[in-house]
């Protein structure tokens, strides 16, 4: 009997070892050759990053791994050393990320605009009013019980933008969250739009994600505010400092950042969705800033997303001087 036990035990061990080893091997289990990109949800939800991945991987032997979490969490991941590069859109958070020593070689890669969306009937009557005035009207209507507001509530770039807009409009976002018409959903951009649609509420969205879901008929909310500086949305790529986290794939990160800012990368960004939506979702920022093709918007970007008159102050740069030529 003891003899019969041994083969069974051996078999069990063998099966377990083989299955774990084979699965790990087959599915690929090292982080080598991988580039982990923690990213804002808007770039991912629209499908832009899928398109970028296909083009990038035909050019370079690097496997792009996207983790779609929102700007706040993306920065936290990077600070723990769990990401190689981040794609984010919140200049104030980005500056903190540079000054705490985690981020290096920031490059602005694209821009578009946020927009205030709400029900077609627009009960708060914000259509074509300036943003801050529109927010004041939403608060008033909300307190009267006629409208609702949906907030991302996830410390994402869009959420930061929302909070700064409330502050600029003279409200304390912390107090607003306690009011009953203000719904905190703690979700990514696409899910937040769907929830706002469900509640027939107003919300702040990036144009890219809004257009995608609106054109596909997933939401009936309307974009009610035109482009203006208060609603500018600027996307940047920032590599993680190798001195701080020696195991990050810094070279891979910089290859990716260089690709994103190259003519090819910028072309992919600008062309994305044009055919499907009849409109550009993300505008190329590199050519605009270099060639000054649209001085007004270039100036807005400089005022909104530059630190000390540059995308990345020299003390936060590490090699790759050609990026800032």
């Amino acid at each position, binding site marked *: 009997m003891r003899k019969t036990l041994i083969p069974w035990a051996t078999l*069990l061990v063998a099966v*377990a070892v083989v299955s774990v080893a084979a*699965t790990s091997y087959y599915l690929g289990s090292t982080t080598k050759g991988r580039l982990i990109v923690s990213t804002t949800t808007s770039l991912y939800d629209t499908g832009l990053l899928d398109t970028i991945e296909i083009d990038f991987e035909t050019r370079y032997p690097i496997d792009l791994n996207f983790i779609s979490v929102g700007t706040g969490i993306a920065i936290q991941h990077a600070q723990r*050393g*769990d990401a190689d590069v981040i794609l984010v859109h919140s200049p104030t958070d980005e500056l903190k990320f540079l000054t705490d020593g985690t981020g290096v070689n920031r490059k602005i890669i694209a821009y578009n605009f946020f927009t205030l969306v709400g029900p077609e009937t627009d009960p708060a009557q914000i259509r074509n009013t300036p943003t801050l005035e529109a927010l004041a009207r939403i608060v008033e209507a909300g307190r009267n019980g006629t409208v609702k507001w949906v907030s991302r509530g996830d410390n994402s770039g869009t959420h930061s933008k929302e909070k700064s807009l409330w502050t600029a409009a003279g409200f304390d976002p912390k107090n607003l969250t306690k009011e009953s018409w203000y719904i905190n959903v703690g979700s990514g951009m696409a*899910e937040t739009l*769907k929830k706002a649609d469900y509640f027939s509420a107003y919300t702040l969205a990036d144009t890219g994600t809004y257009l995608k879901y609106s054109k596909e008929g*997933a939401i009936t909310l309307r974009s009610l505010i035109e482009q203006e500086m208060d609603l500018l949305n600027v996307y940047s790529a920032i590599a993680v400092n190798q001195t701080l986290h020696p195991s990050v794939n810094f070279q891979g990160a910089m290859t990716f950042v260089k690709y994103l800012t190259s003519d090819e990368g910028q072309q992919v960004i600008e062309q994305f969705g044009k055919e499907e939506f009849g409109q550009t979702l993300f505008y190329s920022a590199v050519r605009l800033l270099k060639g000054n093709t649209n001085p007004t918007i270039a100036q807005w970007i400089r005022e909104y997303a530059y630190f000390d008159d540059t995308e990345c102050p020299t003390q936060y740069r590490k090699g790759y001087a050609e990026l800032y030529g």
Partner: protein
Amino acid sequence: MAAEIVEGLLKALQLIFSGDPTVVEVTARSVLISGSATTLSVLWGLPIAAAISLRKFPGRFVVKGIFNSLLGVPTVALGLLLYLVFSKSGALGFMRLLYTPSVMIIGQAALITPIVVSFIANAIESVDPEIKDLAKTLGASEIEASVAVMKESLNGIALAIAASFNRAIAELGVALMIGGNIAGVTSVLTTVIALETNREPTPELPIAWTIILLIIVFAVNITINFIRRRKT
């Protein structure tokens, strides 16, 4: 809504039978990861279960109590804990396993170990204790008598393994938090369902994925039931 589900069902069948590479890949990854996690947890869970159900040692009720109370551990709690451990700044960060299938196997194995241990221990304990005494009076050693008892409880053990596999393949928290749902690397059925529901404008695709997941879970249960029927 009924129309959506029917449409989703049709789309699911279409996806499954068209041999769509993403569907095959994600389904295979789910089965491989959760299957490996199950074998791994049986590897260490079976001896523990045998020890606490057949041996009388001080503190065995405490050990049993611990495994019983871990049965209901929330997957997000375990996911968060494992994320902090395997994060590069964490205790095991040097292994660089975060966001790999390997760490998902470890995580799911940890998640289902209490199920393996508690269910198998219960199965063994529910066998008539006289069998062990009978075996001993027939001249069997302690180990031989234990094996005889475990053979009697094979039914319960099979059920425990099936339940563990189902919990592993159906859980979201661990897979999402330490796997990261990276397309082509760590995306499994549950994480794809969660992501696509948020991301896809129409619900057909998530419904299709859900149906595939349900088919797997039911198939495992039916197979196990079939084996148990034949045994008795």
